[in-house]
C-alpha cells in the first residue's frame, strides 16, 4: 500500500481500515525533469493568472530583487506573493540547471526571515530544499506526460487551492518554468 485510505470530511477515523503492515509513504521530493513540449502554450497562459484583479501580482518580475519584494504580499496565512514565489522555486528545482541553481542561490541570499508568515516561510524553505506538496507533484507528473485529462484535473485542483493560493502558485510556477526552459533552449545544441 503506498497511499493512505481516502478520508472525507465527517468520516469517523476509527471506522476506516488502516493497513496493518507495509510502508505508508508520501515522498515530497521534486525529481528533476521537464514538461512535455505540447504544454508550453498552456504554461504561458498560467503566467498571466498573476494579473487576475484579486491577485494583482506582476506577471513577469524582471529580477530576483523584484521577486523578493513579493514576500508577504497579500492577505492570508499564505499571502499571494508567497504562493507565487513557492511555485517559482518549485519550477526552478524541477527543471534544474546551472542557471536555475544560480537564481535560487541569489534568491536565498536576498531572502530575510520573518518577513512573512511561518507557514509561508516553511513552504518556501521546503521548496528551496526540493520538496513540495502532493498537488504540485501531481501536476508535475501530469505535465511530463501526454494526457490532457490528467493535466487539466491536476491544474484544476491546484487552481482551486485556497481562495487565491492555487492561482498565484500556478502563475509563479509557469513564470519559473519559462526561465528554466528558455535557458535549456539557449544551451541546447
Amino acid at each position, binding site marked *: 500500500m503506498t497511499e493512505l485510505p481516502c478520508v472525507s470530511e465527517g468520516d469517523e477515523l476509527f471506522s476506516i481500515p488502516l493497513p496493518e503492515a507495509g510502508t505508508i509513504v508520501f515522498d515530497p521530493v521534486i525529481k528533476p525533469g521537464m514538461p512535455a513540449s*505540447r504544454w508550453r*502554450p498552456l504554461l*504561458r*497562459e498560467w503566467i498571466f493568472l498573476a494579473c487576475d484583479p484579486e491577485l494583482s501580482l506582476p506577471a513577469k518580475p524582471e529580477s530576483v530583487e523584484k521577486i523578493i519584494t513579493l514576500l508577504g504580499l497579500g492577505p492570508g496565512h499564505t499571502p499571494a506573493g508567497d504562493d507565487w514565489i513557492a511555485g517559482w522555486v518549485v519550477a526552478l528545482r524541477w527543471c534544474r540547471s546551472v542557471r536555475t541553481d544560480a537564481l535560487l542561490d541569489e534568491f536565498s541570499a536576498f531572502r530575510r526571515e520573518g518577513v512573512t508568515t511561518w507557514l509561508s516561510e516553511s513552504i518556501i524553505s521546503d521548496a528551496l530544499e526540493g520538496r513540495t506538496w502532493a498537488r504540485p507533484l501531481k501536476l508535475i507528473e501530469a505535465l511530463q506526460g501526454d494526457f490532457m485529462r490528467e493535466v487539466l*484535473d491536476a491544474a*484544476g*485542483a491546484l*487552481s482551486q487551492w485556497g481562495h487565491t493560493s492555487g492561482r498565484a502558485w500556478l502563475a509563479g510556477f509557469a513564470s519559473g518554468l519559462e526561465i528554466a526552459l528558455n535557458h535549456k533552449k539557449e544551451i541546447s545544441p
Partner: protein
Amino acid sequence: MQRLEVMPRTYYDSITLMRVAKEITSMEGIENASLSMGTEANLRILAAAGFDLSGINVTPNDLVIAVSGEDAVLDEALSKAKEYLANPPWKKEGGKSESYKPRSLDGAISVLPEANIAMISVAGRYAGDVALDCLHRGLNVMLYSDNVPLEKEIEIKKLAREKGLFVMGPDCGTAIVRGVAMGMANICPTGPVSIVAAAGTGLQEVHVQLAKRGVGTLHGIGTGGRDVRAEVGGIMVEMATERLLEDDEVEVLVVIGKPPAPEVEKKILERISRGDKPAVLGFIGGESRGDRDGVYICTELEETAAVAAALAKGEDVAEARKELDSAEESLRELAGKHGPRKGWLRGLYSGGTLCYEAQVIAKELLGPIHSNTPLKKDLKLEDSLTSVEHTIVDFGEDEFTQGRLHPMIDVSLRAGRFVEEAKDPGVGVILFDVVIGYGCNPDPARELAEGVLEAKAVAGDRIAFVASICGTEADPQNAARQRSILEDAGVLVCESNARAARLASYLLKG
C-alpha cells in the same frame, strides 16, 4: 420602496447576474430584484418595472443592482447580492474540484491539438479578431457573438473562403455538425437532410419539424443573418451549399432564411440547379414562387421541413403541401370554436426568424405589424417596450441582450410583459414562442405560464394566448411536458410557429 446601487466598471457574466437576481427575489419581503449592466435598454426595462432612475449616473460598463419590496429588508438584499456576486453559493455545491479550463486560444489548442472548429463567444468588438486568429490557425469558426461590425464580418469571411474554412455566424446560435448539435439546439435524429440557415431559430424550427416527420439531419450550417446581404454577397451560403452538394451522405439540401439580396438568391439558385440532388429553398416571405427541376420553393419554415421530409422519404411533395392546407383549415375551425377576439395582436418572441415568420403571416391576415424588427422600416416601434396596434417584438434583438441574458435563457422579461400587455384593454391575442433544447432555459413553460396566469388575472378571458414550442420530447425540457404546462394555464399550443401565427390571426380576424 426601492434601492438602487451602481457598481462602477464592474462586469459579471449574464448567467451569474440572473442567478443572483433570482436568489434575491426569493428573499422574504422582496418584490423584485434586477442585476444588469447599465445599457440604455436595461435602464428602460428598469424604469418600466417601476424603478425611479432619476439622478443616477451610470454607463454600460457599470453594474446596476435594483431591489424593491419592504423597506426593512432592502439594505440586506443589496449586501446579499454583492456577497453572492463575490462568492456565488452555487459554486460551493458538491465541493469537487473542477478541471482547469484554458483561458487562451494557445492554451486550448495545446490541450486539444486535433480540434478543427472553434466556438467564439466574446464581446462583439473583440470577436472578429479572435475569429481571424482562429482562421490563421486552420480552425473553422462558429461565431456565437453578435455585434460584430459588418466590415469585420466581410474581412473574416473573405479570409475563410481563401483558406477553405467555414465561418458560421456572427450571431450563430445553432449549428449541427455530423448530427452533433452546437449552441442552442435540439435533440433530433441524424439523417439524410442538411440545412444551410441564417443561424438560429429558423434552423431549430426546421430541424425539429423534420424530426416530427421522422426525418433526421446530418449538418446544419449557420451562416449569420447578414451573409445573404449584398455587401457580404452570400460567401458562406455559397460555400456551405457547394460543400453539402458535394457530400455523398447528404440526400436533400435545404437553404432557409430571410429573403436574400436578389444577386445572392440568383447565385444560390444557379448553384443548386446544377447540383444532382433535390433542394428546398425556404426564404421566409420571399418573392420567388414555383418549383422547378429538383428545386422546391417554400415561404415558411414548416412548409420547408414538410417538403424536405417528403423528398427524403420518397413521398409526394404535393401531398405534403395538401396536408398543410388541411391543417390550416383546422386552425380556422379551432379559432371559430374558441370564439373571435377583438383588438390587437401582441407577439412576444425570443427567436429572430420565428418573429420574422410570425410577422409575415400576421401581416397577410391582419395588416401592418409594428415591431422592433419590422418587415418595413416605417413600422419600427419608437420604443420596443411600448406596443402599438398590432405589434410583434423580438426580445432576442441586441437592444435586449447587451448585458442581459438571451430571452431563450431568461424568460422573465417576456413573462412580465404578458401582464403589461394584459393591462391594455385593446389587446385581444398574445402570441409567443417557447424555444427549448440545449443551452435554453431548463423549464421555460413554468415561468411563462405563471406570467400567463397573472395576465389572465388582470384581463380575465378577454385575451387568448397562443404559442408554439420549438423542441422535441427528447430535449432536456421535454416538449410534451412544456406543452402540458402551457395548456394547463389555458394557452392554445400549436404544432409550429407558422400555425401559431395563423391561429392568433384567425382569432382576431374571425
